[in-house]
């Protein structure tokens, strides 16, 4: 009986070890990746990223300083300490890091949680801020580090981490610690610059986060960058119009929304926002025309409300712009 118990325990233990062994590391990304994607170089090292050795527990401020100063800012971990370090937690939180970067008018772009994205950004010259869990899931020790390079031949990730500059970490170890932190990775770039792996919607959301945290000028600049990068998307121009509208710059907003309906005449939201902006700009006739176009384009969305434009208005329409014609017949 006793022996049986020992045997079953041993069996359970082996099972545990086997289970733990199941968390395997995917192979290193192939250099000849999918069509349309750039071929990654074998070895990259961003020598220009400055290095700050972390003091006790303060990997957050040190990493953020490396990210910001690599983009030409001049700050240092001591200053950032106030911003992101929480003494009671002996560390920083992701949200603090993101907010800290935003307060320097930077776009914080979250990467897709896969190594390819990290390698692609680093190859494009953008250091990547990553989060790691150095211990285990139920006893985490969170850590921030900056990826400044990699070596495909050795399969190593080169990190500025803790007190080590350009430390080459074996891929397996990096993958394990990074995966335990949900593969959190961001690039921090000025709003004029587009991340190498940027997707329109994710970039726009990052820009909108800047706007909603009060960094309107940086947000505007990011919207403009998005418009240049993805000229076939109405959303970046809409965002610029909405930003101007929010600042009560009616004529500026009219210009943006007019650009939307000229370039994307089928986009009902553009006509709708143009209508409400024209109303503010004292152009009730044009406002009514624009709204009926929005309604005709998308009756289920805009058709329900009878807008009463022009009541109590004094606008004579002298300074009001002529509208492009609606692509569908209006009621």
């Amino acid at each position: 009986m006793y022996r049986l118990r020992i045997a079953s325990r041993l069996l359970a233990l082996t099972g545990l070890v086997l289970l733990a062994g199941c968390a395997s590391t995917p192979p290193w990304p192939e250099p000849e990746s999918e069509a349309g994607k750039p071929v990654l170089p074998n070895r990259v090292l961003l020598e220009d990223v400055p290095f700050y050795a972390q003091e006790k527990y303060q990997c957050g401020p040190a990493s953020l300083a490396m990210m910001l100063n690599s983009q030409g800012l001049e700050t240092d971990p001591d200053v950032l300490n106030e911003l992101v370090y929480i003494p009671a937690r002996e560390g920083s939180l992701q949200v603090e890091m993101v907010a800290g970067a935003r307060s320097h008018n930077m776009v914080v772009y979250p990467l897709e949680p896969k190594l390819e994205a990290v390698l692609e950004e680093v190859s494009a010259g953008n250091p990547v801020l990553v989060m790691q869990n150095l211990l285990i899931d139920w006893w985490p020790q969170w850590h921030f580090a900056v990826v400044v390079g990699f070596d495909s031949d050795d399969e190593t990730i080169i990190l500025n981490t803790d007190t080590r500059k350009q430390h080459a970490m074996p891929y397996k170890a990096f993958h394990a610690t990074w995966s335990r932190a949900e593969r959190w990775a961001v690039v921090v770039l000025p709003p004029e610059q587009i991340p190498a792996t940027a997707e329109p919607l994710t970039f726009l959301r990052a820009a909108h986060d800047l706007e909603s945290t009060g960094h309107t000028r940086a947000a505007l600049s990011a919207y403009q960058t998005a418009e240049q990068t993805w000229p076939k998307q109405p959303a970046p121009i809409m965002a610029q119009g909405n930003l101007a509208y929010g600042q009560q710059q009616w004529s500026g907003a009219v210009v943006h929304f007019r650009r939307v309906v000229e370039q994307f005449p089928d986009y009902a939201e553009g006509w709708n926002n143009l209508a409400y902006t024209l109303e503010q700009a004292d152009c009730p006739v044009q406002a009514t025309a624009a709204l009926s176009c929005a309604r005709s384009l998308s009756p289920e969305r805009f058709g329900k409300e009878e807008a009463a434009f022009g009541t109590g208005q004094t606008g004579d329409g002298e300074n009001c712009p002529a509208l492009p014609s609606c692509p569908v017949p209006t009621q």
Partner: protein
Amino acid sequence: MSEIRNYLKQVSLVMAVLMAMATTFSTTAHAGMVGTGEIIQQQQTELDRQQLLNMLEKQEVQEKLAEMGVSKDQVADRIQNLTPTELADFEQQLAEAPAGQDVVGIIVLFLLVFIITDMLCATNIFSFINCIR
């Protein structure tokens, strides 16, 4: 904890029905400016929808659906009519699904929502389900 587990099936059915009802009655009628956050959300919904439709193109998924007697077009139709909340829910479930078992997970998920909405007479994919009126 174990008591809850005993009723897990019933509880999840009730939750699923509640979810379906909550999303059936949400409207998208609009008056006023369309904000940037809303535009982003809207585009995200379209992107999610497209991703689901792309998944439907996979051979294994179609085979599995055929096994269950559902045609690809019916499911595609249903995906077109999913509300943003339902779509977001799908995306959430997919993101949480461990790699490798995703295909089966998707199918089960599809069917769960479809059967429930069919029960509410929102759709009529399964002839064997009589809807509650």
